């Protein structure tokens, strides 16, 4: 395992950073919010980064992808965090692609992955049913029928659900056949399919999130992701990819909060001195700096672990999600507090970071969820 970036990865980091600074600075996120944009992200920007291979970052070259792997994806996610860039990267390029790569049938992979890579379609994960992340608690049912299934249930907090062409839905198989009794299965469902109703919900970070109602959606066997791989494991793998990437995004936001606050304290004067000269603030910033460094290392470790399919993957991913969530929230709090009253106004960008950090932290399990999971992984 290697935790520092190689030259190629550093180049990617620089170019992604420059691109986002130019094309999607924080003001772009603000504009999307103020315009109450229906997608919650910019289709133009997405087309642009599709050309750079972001949509196909995990997809094999043979299927039209760039095949750069999870560490590269983490680099992009971190840069997206830095400028609050809203893109369907996490939903489509990372979690959906991971599910399809690891659990899609040959037909599914060959039909969908090239289109994802080409930016022709978006796929969203419809997983959560409870306000507090509990992906194993599934009420959505897939009743076996002749030649297929009938899907019913409700999903909430579906990232980019409103803009997606396909959904990957987790469901509980209810026909008690020998191999299927109550077990979890994933289905690739066209968003336009009869019985699928998608309702966008307004979120504090203005991202595209939807509630999805499934009413007797008729599916064929071709909709089901490969039954050879246990649905529960597959689901965890897709989620873990998302969690690692969210950790990287949180890291990017934490870094940016630290940097903006440092800059502000170096300019702002009070009581005849620059705020940065006050030792109590210096020590808090220095402590935060250390925390951000630790977050950076564990986020990287999680991406490397997924890439290498490390035996300790689950623990590392949860440690990364917990640590980056904690550190980003600390960074957000310190940024707000040290900016003082002005940071509390909507005019400044700090509030946008605070909101996106909270949202990213809650997505796919918050700090306490993942600390709990670490304890469980360690067996205590």
């Amino acid at each position: 395992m290697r935790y520092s970036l190689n030259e190629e990865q550093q180049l990617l980091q620089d170019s992604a950073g420059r691109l986002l600074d130019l094309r999607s600075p924080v003001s772009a996120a603000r504009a999307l919010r103020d315009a109450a944009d229906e997608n919650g992200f910019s289709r133009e920007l997405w087309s642009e980064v599709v050309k750079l291979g972001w949509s196909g970052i995990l997809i094999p070259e043979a299927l039209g992808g760039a095949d750069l792997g999870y560490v590269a994806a983490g680099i992009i996610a971190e840069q997206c965090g830095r400028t609050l860039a809203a893109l369907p990267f996490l939903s489509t390029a990372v979690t959906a692609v991971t599910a399809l790569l690891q659990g899609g049938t040959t037909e599914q992979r060959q039909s969908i992955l090239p289109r994802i890579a080409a930016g022709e379609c978006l796929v969203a994960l419809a997983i959560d049913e409870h306000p507090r992340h509990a992906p194993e608690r599934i009420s959505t049912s897939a009743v076996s029928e002749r030649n297929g299934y009938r899907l019913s249930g409700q999903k909430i907090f579906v990232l980019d659900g409103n803009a997606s062409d396909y959904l990957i839905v987790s469901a509980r198989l209810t026909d008690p056949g020998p191999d299927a009794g109550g077990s979890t299965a994933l289905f690739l469902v066209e968003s336009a399919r009869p019985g699928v109703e998608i309702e966008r919900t307004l979120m504090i970070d203005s991202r595209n999130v939807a509630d999805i109602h499934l009413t007797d959606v008729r599916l064929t066997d071709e909709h089901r992701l490969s039954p050879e791989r246990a649905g529960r494991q597959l689901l965890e793998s897709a989620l873990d990819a998302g969690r690692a990437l969210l950790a990287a995004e949180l890291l990017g936001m934490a870094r940016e909060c630290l940097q903006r606050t440092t800059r502000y304290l170096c300019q702002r004067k009070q009581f005849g001195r620059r705020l940065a000269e006050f030792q109590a603030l210096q020590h808090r910033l220095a402590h935060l700096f250390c925390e951000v460094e630790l977050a950076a290392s564990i986020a990287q470790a999680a991406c490397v672990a997924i890439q290498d399919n490390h035996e300790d993957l689950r623990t590392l991913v949860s440690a990364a999600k917990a640590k980056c969530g904690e550190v980003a929230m600390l960074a957000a709090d310190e940024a707000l507090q040290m900016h003082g009253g002005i940071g509390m106004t909507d005019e400044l960008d700090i509030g946008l970071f605070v909101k996106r950090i909270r949202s990213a932290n809650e997505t796919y399990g918050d700090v306490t969820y993942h600390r709990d999971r670490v304890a469980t992984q360690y067996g205590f």
Partner: protein
Amino acid sequence: MEFDDTELGHDVLEHFRSATRAWLEANCPKEMRGPASSEDQVYWGGRRAQFASDAQRAWFERMVVRGWTVPEWPREYGGAGLDVAHASILREEMSRLQCRAPLMSFGISMLGPALMRFASETQKMEHLPRIARGEIRWCQGYSEPGAGSDLASLNTCAEDRGDHFLVSGQKIWTSYADLADWIFCLVRTDPAAERHKGIGFLLIDMAGQGVSTRPIRLISGTSPFCETFFENVRVPKGNLVGSAGGGWEIAKYLLTHERESIGDMSILPPGVARLHKHAILAIGLEHGRLTDGVLRAELSRWEVDSRAFQATLQRLREQATSARGLGAFSSVLKYYGTELNKRKEDLAMSIAGVRGLRWSNQAGAADPSGDTARAWLRSKGNSIEGGTSEIQLNIIAKHLLQLPGA
């Protein structure tokens, strides 16, 4: 017994208690009991005030007549002249029946005590009774853009023009300035004097020419805060409280008061603060414990600190009434109370999960979604407004620990 060791004193107080209880039961309308569930159920008074209901008006007017909007103020200023013991009993009985405050007012909570201490008799007679009767709604003008915690670095100037001051400048964080009638302001009366010396405490009628306000939008949405602008506003000299250079003293006194009430406010009435009950509902129990064991641990730590804080509130209040006032101890309450409240809102968000991330762009819209997030975001300002946590720690270091150079 706590306030008077004689049996006689005890009897007098118990008699007052039962009379008060009877009066409240008879006079406080049913609709005026229980916590206010929306902003318009709170009556703030002022020239443009409207009652939300007949019950609100009746309750307010009955209390005004008895002087019980400001029970501890002297009768000549519109109060009831109650001593600490009697006022406590009134508060206890009101809280027992869950009577709402008949009048919310910065005039009562902030300006009044300062006028009582620093104003001339003429000023007291002019302003205090109108505060007590809710005729004038006041707002406060201390902060200026760019000043932050360094309050004394203010630039709004009041030029001496013989019979009046000419005031120009800008204030920020003037809560409810858009609804207020008058503003009490710190202004620089002498730009040449030492920072803390050339400051005056001025009362300004906002209906006067040259005064304008603009609301501030916070990260949590709309807010009562405003920016307030003064452009060559003429203010009679008689509106200056204390001396032209004595404003800083008054401001410090007022800030102490504000700190106490902010530290205090952060502790919600019992029942509302019962965070763990929400948690049980939202998360569920397994073997009698919250299924999220890590959150359970954090919740329990908060409950412990909250109990300790409530006990501290009570202890300090007892000490304050029995003798010398809270003084710098108010910084302990402000600092700890606001940090505790921030932790509470963080926990509330954790408990709510993704449901807590919902947001409706219109604050106060019929759709209640976004309330958890809004309260959480708003709480972040608690440790900034009314003196940042850092300022409170400086005060504690200086006045309670007496550290050099603090």
